[in-house]
């Protein structure tokens, strides 16, 4: 049984078809990178998995369980989400950003949640920032906190929506390093990214999307170094300069 199964996923915004039938499985411990041009539907696909966008058609299974309107809140606790714009809670300290989910959603003990949060902050290298507010952190630091916040819920899979796209170039590395270490520890990850280097190094599988379809998929070497489809070659020639 796959960790994530996507079957016949379609999504339209009004008349605009963004996803035109996506089928994809993600296995436990697998790192899937989704690449493609802007507007290809890759972020929408990711957001459909945890239903931040409601699919127009198709089904998503997590751990074999169909995700629907009724079980979405509990299903989301299995899926950590990291956004392009971090979306930390600005009125909460870094530590509270990490504990707000476990304490309120999982009804976890406050003290235990805080201890765990500190371990996670150590893991992303920001233990000394626990008492700070997000506005006092750099973009890279904020995104590392956002990753830790998602991890605090003990998710089974992590969804990354262009996690480095809003960062200054010199901060991209520190975020990618955290993601690499997660991958190495066996976390199941779906990553929408423009970082081809990261995809090559970390991904088990890469899919190239365009126009709402999966155009090509395979190992990073297959898709990124030896693409078969013209559309993929064209895209890669523009990004891999």
């Amino acid at each position, binding site marked *: 049984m796959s960790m994530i199964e996507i079957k016949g996923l379609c999504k339209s915004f009004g008349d605009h078809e963004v996803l035109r039938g996506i089928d994809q499985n993600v296995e436990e411990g697998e790192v899937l990178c989704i690449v493609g041009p802007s507007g290809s539907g890759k972020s929408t696909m990711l957001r459909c998995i*945890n239903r931040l966008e409601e699919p127009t058609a198709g089904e998503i299974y997590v751990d074999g369980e169909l995700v629907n309107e009724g079980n979405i809140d*509990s299903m*989301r606790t299995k899926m950590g989400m990291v*956004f392009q714009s971090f979306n930390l*809670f600005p*009125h909460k300290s870094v530590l509270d950003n990490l504990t707000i989910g476990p304490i309120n*959603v999982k009804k976890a003990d406050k003290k235990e949640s805080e201890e765990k949060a500190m371990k996670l902050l150590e893991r992303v290298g920001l233990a000394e920032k626990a008492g700070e507010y997000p506005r006092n952190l750099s973009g890279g630091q904020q995104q590392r906190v956002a990753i830790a*916040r998602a991890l605090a819920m003990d998710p089974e899979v992590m969804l990354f929506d262009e996690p480095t796209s809003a960062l200054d170039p010199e901060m991209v590395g520190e975020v990618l390093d955290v993601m690499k270490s997660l991958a190495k520890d066996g976390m199941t990850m779906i990553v929408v990214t423009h970082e081809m280097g990261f995809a090559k190094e970390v991904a088990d599988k890469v899919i190239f999307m365009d126009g709402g379809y999966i155009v090509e998929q395979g190992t990073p070497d297959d898709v990124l170094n030896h693409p078969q489809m013209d559309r993929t070659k064209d895209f890669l020639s523009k990004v891999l300069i």
Partner: protein
Amino acid sequence: MGVYLKGFLIACKGIPATVAVSLIAIVIGAAFGLLLALCSQTKSKILQVLAKVYIDVVRGTPMLVQALIMAYGIPWLLQSWGVGFKWDNFGGMVVPAVIVCGFNSAAYMSEVIRSGIQAIDKGQMEAARSLGMSHGMAMRLVIIPQAIRIILPAFANEFVTLIKETSVLGYVGVVEILRRGQLWNSSSFETFPAYIGVALAYMILTIPLSKIINGYERKMARKESAA
């Protein structure tokens, strides 16, 4: 000069009533206004329409007319149905006065609260929901606490407005600041000092409040530009 001081002191006797009515009304207004704001943002068309109609009716009619309907119209209606209803049996005329001020204020507060909620980046709701929070929990823990900071100055301004608006309550039997002045005027015929005293009594409430609001807004603006 003594007559002016007297006018002022007499008007000041109405301050407790004015402040008490305004305070209770702003609490009702905030609570019911929040409910209206949430209704106008739900997916339910019925709730949206109900909230919209309520807001339009309240904002489209003078508060004095609302107060007269609540204080005298409703008892008349109930009595015509054979129900022996009198506000005096339910705590006196201050009760309909507070109800009208509160529910009137709610219509204005709801717009303030709605715009405050809408000012919060939608990524905040998405981040909260993606942690597994329900919509209600996300509103309570993430959206509303942030919206309150934005709303606070407008909320305090509404309180200042409310203090002034309660001056119509004299017409429904509440002896507040203006009513004190009117009563004194009709017994002393010191018309100008009486109403100047009333004006001053309102000013010692509203002007310090406005200064505090301005100070808060400046502080927030500095914080924003520092961040």
